[in-house]
């Protein structure tokens, strides 16, 4: 097992890890404000990626098609909030999780009705060529995905901690009733959070589709399980945590392939997550205070 082999595998791990990180951000955004696991998020991303594919197929210029798909993602995020969350916002925390999962399954069936069950190839609008950084060889696409994920981590932190909207969102997060009393339009804030989650999620989903060169129905479930695991690992609700968690999960999976073979990849990487959570129950970057109900 030479150094070149290991560094190549590390680059592979970072590449897939940054895809997980990108999607995990969407979970963290909603969770950090509402303490809700938005299980529909992965499916919103999947529909968004299909929407991008359809728009590109209709000869819409690529940037416009991606923007259009992000708008679809935002609208879907709002629709999920309105239909699956708001009616049960004040119920036990389990209820909205289940209704979100239900919304996800509906989206999944709907996508199959519209686009069919087959895997679709996704156009490669960013050319793929190797970039050599020291001992590492990255593909150009992985570098861009990693870059986008880093930018989004900072953008999300800035939005939440440095803007008026972010202040309002934090008030909603701390005490919904008090926020309403001081005149914060809490429904509007929550809708905006979901719309933003959907918008950014689809932006990530398009990169995800391009990395795999494929758009497929099961993408929703894949995004849900892997990104959720990454978010847990990093500390749910923490943007840097989601990012680092995604990278660690990606590298852990690659490590599992090297050590025990790809058939046991998921088992090994999830074992690592369990071990981390045993030592740090709130994830690597989660603070205990975040875990109030």
């Amino acid at each position, binding site marked *: 097992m030479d150094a070149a*082999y290991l560094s*190549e595998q590390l680059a592979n791990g970072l590449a897939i890890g940054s895809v997980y990180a990108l999607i995990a951000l969407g979970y963290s955004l909603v969770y950090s404000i509402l303490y809700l696991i938005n299980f529909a998020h992965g499916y919103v991303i999947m529909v968004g990626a299909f929407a991008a594919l359809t728009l590109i197929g209709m000869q819409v210029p690529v940037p416009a098609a991606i923007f259009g798909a992000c708008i679809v993602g935002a609208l879907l995020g709002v629709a999920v909030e309105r239909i699956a969350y708001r009616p049960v916002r004040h119920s036990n925390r389990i209820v909205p999780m289940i209704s979100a999962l239900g919304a996800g399954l509906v989206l999944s*069936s709907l996508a199959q009705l519209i686009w069919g069950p087959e895997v679709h190839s996704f156009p490669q609008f960013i050319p793929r060529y190797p970039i050599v950084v020291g001992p590492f060889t990255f593909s150009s696409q992985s570098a861009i995905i990693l870059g986008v994920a880093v930018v989004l981590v900072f953008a999300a932190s800035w939005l939440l901690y440095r803007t008026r909207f972010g202040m309002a969102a934090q008030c909603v997060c701390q005490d919904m009733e008090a926020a309403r009393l001081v005149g914060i339009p809490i429904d509007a804030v929550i809708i905006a959070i979901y719309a933003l989650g959907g918008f950014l999620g689809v932006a990530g989903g398009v990169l995800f589709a391009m990395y795999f060169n494929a758009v497929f129905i099961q993408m929703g479930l894949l995004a849900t399980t892997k990104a959720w695991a990454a978010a847990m690992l990093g500390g749910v609700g923490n943007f840097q945590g989601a990012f680092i968690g995604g990278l660690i999960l990606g590298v852990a999976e690659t490590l599992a392939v*090297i050590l025990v*073979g790809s*058939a046991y990849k998921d088992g090994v990487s999830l074992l690592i997550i369990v071990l981390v959570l045993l030592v740090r129950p709130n994830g690597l970057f989660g603070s205990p205070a975040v875990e109030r109900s």
Partner: protein
Amino acid sequence: MHDHSSPNRRQILQAFSAIAAGTILPAGLVRPAAAADDVITLALAAPMTGNNAAEGLNARQGADMALAMINGAGGIGGKKLAYDPFDDQGTPKEAAAVAQRILDADKYAAVIGHVDSSCTLAAMPIYSDAGMPVLCSSSSNPAVTDSGWENIIRMTIRDDYGAQEYSAFAVNNLGKKKLGILFANDDYGRGLRDEMVKALTVLPGSSVAAEAGFTPSVDKDFSSVITDFKSKGVDVFMLNCGYTEGGLFLGQAKGLGITGVPTVGPDALLYDQFITLSQGAAEGAYILAAYDPYAQDPVTKTFMDAFEKAHSSLPSQVAVFTHDLFLLFKAATEAGATSQDLIAKIKGMSFSGAGGKYAWDAKGDVKDRTFAVVQVKDGKFTSTGKAVDETGLQKLRG
């Protein structure tokens, strides 16, 4: 806020239930009347939803084309042929439930299906007890015909025989020695992998340089596997997988700068998407197909052209075999077979369909069928006319 919105919600719910009722009721009413004398109905069991839903779609496309042809030419002895689709979701549990529903309906002359071996294996005991004839397209697990059931025949070539052929082709025809095997980490994929490895024991000088299992329809990133194969000096990719994974694997290999490694795979790869998903890296790949889609046979050509025209894609193996099973049912029925002796009659006859000539042995396996070697050339599948060099395999077949 709950108080304002709840009447609204109730109205929405009512509207939804009205729509739901509206869609379900007519669907219930248009089901063909049971035991109508002028229609022969078959049950088509395949995964219509779930991860393998693409197979179900292909089964229906193949079935629809066969029906159009049969009914367009007057049906079977003046009766129309029809089918009802049954969704086994690609899971054994659901397949067993579907089998029971098909028998309970008491209107089907035969079952066409199932597609996945695990589903066929789960459903067969139920069909067998009732004596329901089963015409199976693509279930390739050896146990499907080795379990002593007398009411089944199948179209595809058995896995154990097939997997050994893959190895022989890589070693004998291509002269490669260090195999890199990618396989689905389920019963089907592991079974194939085991037989491929077994064949290497009688093919001198060959070995498994690297292997990797993947979780079907979940794993889509093969970068780490590809890097592993490369570092272990693999000189031929053995892709024991569907067209999705196969195409993605080659496309990702190209992204990592690895091209020009010969590739051998099953006819699950024989689908346009394999070439598209590989982004050109499938060029030169060899596919061992249980039927030859480019045979110069008029029946094959007619079918391929019609399918291309209707769906602007290649038919998958499931579509071809399902299509042929409907024609086979017609041929057997016209030769005097009834539901009771359909399978026995078919075992005694030979038949020619879009997938070539078929004949069956006493267990229900196709006999004297060999793989057609198809290659990707200039972004298209083409028949090479080659045959697998079986030197050495005789030792395994006694």
